[in-house]
């Protein structure tokens, strides 16, 4: 890990330079959503969905059968709440998800419990609850598909989706 740190820093430096270009481009062609900027893009313009995805992080992960927010998850949600306070035009939907190692109906409820944990945390950081709605997809919408923990851990998640 230590040897990769300088590379990461270097990457961020490039990213900041590139942001200026991206802002200029966005002034003429407003874009929202993922994938609308070309390859090699960075964090998107300030206040954009792209910036939220890349620079803040839209999701937190959970341990098996747990809805407890890890310290990593809390750090991500701290960053989310700061960003959301700056860009108050967004409403958000918290989507709760579970991995496939549970039954369908229990996982619907587990996903809702995870979404609720995120809502409560964001509310404690000053995001008004009337900006937030929630939904659970249980195990029905995995992002990673395989039969081991490398996928299950990515699927046990709560995703903050920006809506206008």
């Amino acid at each position, binding site marked *: 890990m230590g040897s990769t740190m300088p590379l990461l820093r270097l990457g961020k430096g490039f990213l900041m330079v590139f942001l200026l270009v991206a802002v200029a481009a966005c002034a003429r062609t407003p874009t929202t959503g993922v994938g609308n900027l070309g390859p090699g893009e960075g964090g998107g313009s300030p206040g954009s969905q792209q910036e939220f995805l890349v620079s803040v992080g839209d999701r937190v992960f959970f341990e098996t*059968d747990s*809805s407890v927010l890890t310290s990593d998850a809390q750090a991500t949600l701290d960053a989310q709440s700061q960003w959301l306070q700056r860009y108050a035009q967004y409403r958000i*939907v918290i989507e709760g998800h579970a991995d*496939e*190692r*549970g*039954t*369908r*109906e*229990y996982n*619907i*409820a*587990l996903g*809702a*419990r995870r979404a*609720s*944990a995120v*809502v*409560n945390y964001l509310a404690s950081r000053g995001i008004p609850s009337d900006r937030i*709605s*929630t*939904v*659970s*997809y*249980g195990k*029905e*919408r*995995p*992002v990673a*598909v*395989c*039969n081991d923990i490398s996928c299950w851990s990515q699927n046990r998640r709560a995703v903050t989706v920006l809506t206008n």
Partner: protein
Amino acid sequence: MRLGLSGAAVLAAGGPASALVQITVTGGNFTPLPIAVPDFASSDPTFGAEVAQIVRNNLTRSGLFRLVEPSSYPQQVGAPNATPEFASWRGTGADAVVMGEADRAGGQIQSSLRLWDTTAGEQVTGKSYGTDANSWRRIAHIASDAIYSGLTGEDGYFDSRVVYIAESGPKANRIKRVAVMDQDGANNSYLTDGRMPAITPRLSPDGQTIAYMTLDGPNSSGIYLLNMGSGQSQALGRFGQMSFAPRFSPDGRRLVFSVTQGAATNLYALDLGASQPFALTSGAAIDTSPSYSPDGSRIVFESDRGGRPQIYVMAANGGGAERISFGDGSYSTPVWSPKGDLIAFTRMSGGQFSIGTMQPDGSGERILATSYHAEGPTWAPNGRVLMFFRDPGGNDGPRLYAMDIWGRNESQVPTEGFASDPAWSPLLS
């Protein structure tokens, strides 16, 4: 002698005599009964052969019967109005032989059969029945039920349907539709278009309504009722943040389901036609997957109030919940047998999923099938067969399987694509 013409008339006086051949299934050690099923006599021989083949498939899949190979029969076509040559049937190894006939008459199909004990040389069952011509396969299922019932002394389960979720497409974006088919996989039809993913369908006792859950964003996820007559679905209503896991009461007048509010999921009941449900459970835990006892007096459900999900039984109006599952791991999706004697469940332990049964007091647990994933048992209407779904994981998808209550004779139920969440109907006749 012609068989009686009135529908479903049982011609044999009283029940099967004790001297006659009968299957008694009480445990895992059991030899399937050898049975011969010649083609049904018909003015359309192809039709008669098709009916017989469906009967053969049903009886074989049940695990209780061993089909004697038709090529060894002394006659290829049944003669229901003649006494069989018992000695020649005994010579094939058959303990029982079915003599049937089936003919179209106008928009109807009339059929009758006699089931004979080849050793005693006596009739076990005689039955005459009819259906409309559009549902001709039911003739074979009704015949199968008569044979099953005549030889086991219990109700059959072949003349029944299964609602389920038909799945297609890649796992991360899978299309999920409500579908219905005969219990053997025939006569499939899709009931929703898949634009909104549907899960966990349940048929009302009168077969007219399917309750299911739709997963489609924060505003439209919830329980829907599908009218089988019109084909239209309607949202049940918005309760809490989300409602799911709907089940009909045995009298069909009430729906019980889960309502999520914040981190908590509790069970509620709604009298159909009323606007507001009432709470059956309260607290911060997850309570879901309810199932009524067949007499409607109790509800078995799943709760993680003690930590991991376990099975509890309470009064149908709430209160007095008692935990009945105590093994390692966790227990989910309890389903009460229509006979009332067993509760089937999904168990997760040691990184595997299992389907099992226990008695309503939690005793006598039996694990019947174990694999990477297995979930969601549903009971055949006679409480002797379980159907469930199994998903091998990865980008593969789930399929339906049936087995008897001793875990024997497991077989895949044929479906066009991936299939999950089976829910078995009551007997149609």
